């Protein structure tokens, strides 16, 4: 009896369906290519997943409370530059990193205050800020990429080391998941998205929750950008952008966080990012050419998501 209960509870998890889809994909790619589960590819695969997963954690919290941040991919490009300039100015790299994240927090604060106080829909607010950030990054960098400082051990811990990115991603996902499920912040985030008037009625400071989640997302976006800059050794003004923001939001949605808000799952977003990463890495490994790549990727995403929704429906009947 207890064993049946555990299986039942696993199946009832909101993340069960996307997890099932992920497992099927891994089995498929392993069958299609013997190198899929080798050490070398697992490391590559983890690098396909990590940055998207980290940004997804922030976007999921925002989606839950009814907002979105389109500028996360652009603080992604800006943060490593800020870190670079602080490093050039003589600060030790760890301090430069922390201050760069502080700068990202300020960006998040601006996003949040404009959305909450000036009552601009967050889609529009962050549309404006991402253009601003893009131009700002291009200006301070003169449009040219620079070499990311190579600090040996420090760089290894923050992206250069093979599995360091995915370790950060999992740690961050667990942390945000904990906040969502075990703290008042998480509860109030859900309330702010599910019933903002009702939540305000009950005395919850909905505005403060939203601003806080904007700050979280910008900091995570900047951190992901810094990790990637250490990984490839180059800080590029064109890095990230709307493409990675979109991937992060997509990871959240396919992981089980509805765009409409009011509920969500961070662990599901991690699995969603993994599914997207498995698809992209798996098809590249198989040698699919760039022109047909997007077609095949698109078809695969549709198939995977249809399966996801239907398994989800089955789950609810269990």
């Amino acid at each position, binding site marked *: 009896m207890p064993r049946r209960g555990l299986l039942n509870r696993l199946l009832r998890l909101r993340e069960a369906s996307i997890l099932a889809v992920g497992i099927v994909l891994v089995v498929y790619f392993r069958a299609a290519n013997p190198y899929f589960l080798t050490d070398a590819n697992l490391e590559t695969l983890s690098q396909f997943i990590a940055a998207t997963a980290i940004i997804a954690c922030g976007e999921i919290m925002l989606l*839950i409370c009814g907002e979105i941040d389109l500028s996360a991919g652009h603080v992604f490009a800006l943060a490593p530059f800020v870190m670079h300039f602080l490093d050039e100015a003589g600060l030790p790299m760890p301090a430069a990193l922390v201050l760069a994240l502080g700068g990202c927090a300020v960006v998040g604060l601006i996003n949040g205050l404009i959305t909450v106080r000036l009552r601009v829909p967050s889609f529009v607010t962050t549309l404006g800020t991402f253009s601003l950030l893009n131009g700002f990054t291009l200006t301070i960098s003169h449009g040219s990429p620079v070499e990311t400082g190579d600090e040996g051990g420090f760089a290894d811990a923050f992206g250069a080391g093979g599995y360091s990115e995915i370790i950060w991603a999992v740690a961050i996902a667990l942390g945000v998941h904990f906040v969502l499920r*075990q*703290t*008042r912040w998480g*509860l109030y985030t*859900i*309330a702010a*998205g*599910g*019933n903002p*008037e*009702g*939540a305000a*009625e*009950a*005395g*919850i400071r909905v505005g403060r929750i939203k601003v806080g989640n904007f700050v979280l997302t910008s900091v995570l976006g900047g951190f992901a950008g810094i990790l990637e800059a250490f990984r490839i050794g180059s800080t590029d003004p064109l890095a990230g952008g709307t493409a990675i923001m979109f991937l992060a939001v997509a990871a959240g949605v396919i992981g089980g966080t509805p765009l409409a808000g*009011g*509920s969500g799952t961070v662990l599901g977003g991690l699995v969603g990012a993994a599914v997207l990463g498995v698809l992209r890495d798996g098809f590249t490994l198989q040698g699919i050419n760039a022109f047909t790549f997007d077609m095949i990727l698109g078809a695969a995403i549709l198939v995977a998501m249809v399966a996801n929704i239907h398994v989800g429906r089955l789950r609810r009947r269990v």
Partner: protein
Amino acid sequence: MTAPALRVEAITKRFGALTALDGVTMGVDEGEILGILGDNGAGKSTLMKVITGYHPPTSGEVFVRGEKVALRSVDHARSLGIDCVYQDLALVNGLSVAHNLFLNREILRRFPPRMLDNPAMRRRAAAVLADIGVNIPDVDAEVQHLSGGQRQAIAVARAVSGQARILLLDEPLAAMGAREAALIIELIRRLRAKGGLAIVMVMHNYAQTLDLADRIILMQHGTITYERRTAETSVEELLSIVRREYQAVGPH
């Protein structure tokens, strides 16, 4: 004789040129169920908002348990025991019964500090619901899966468990079938029987109100035009008063 749980005297509320309440005086005793009736625009919700501290009155006074108070905010009113269950219920769909019950009043662990104590909340929630006779088997279920009657019961339970002494209910039986309405009516009667609570209900349905309330007041155009113990009046009489007003004023 003990002071009424709540009493308002000569409350007037103006919004610019519009007078929403014009010299309203009413009160409710502990252990009493008061029904407030009236058409839309009569001033019922404005009166509720003044009592719950949402709107300060333009003039007039509020007494809670005999003491004059100036209600600064909804939180302040709540701290004095005045709580309202609104039509939209202020329940959050994505959260469980227990979490809704304790919204903004969560039970926290001692260690690790400031973390939610979910097991404790589940136990307390089950106890609170059992205490007022509401049957909800799984306090971990998300409220969106519950029926209208169960949701209303949880909203009421939240107000009650929060040490409310003066409970206001805004259309508690709205959009409910007969069976569910009966359950809520039973719940409200049990609350009265428990003691320590003054209940004010804003309602539309005269028959249900007369069935449940001890006393009713009828509001029209910002004033109270009729007040009677329910035993001493009837639906026909109330309707005739309202009809008289229409005939005097004409349709508009």
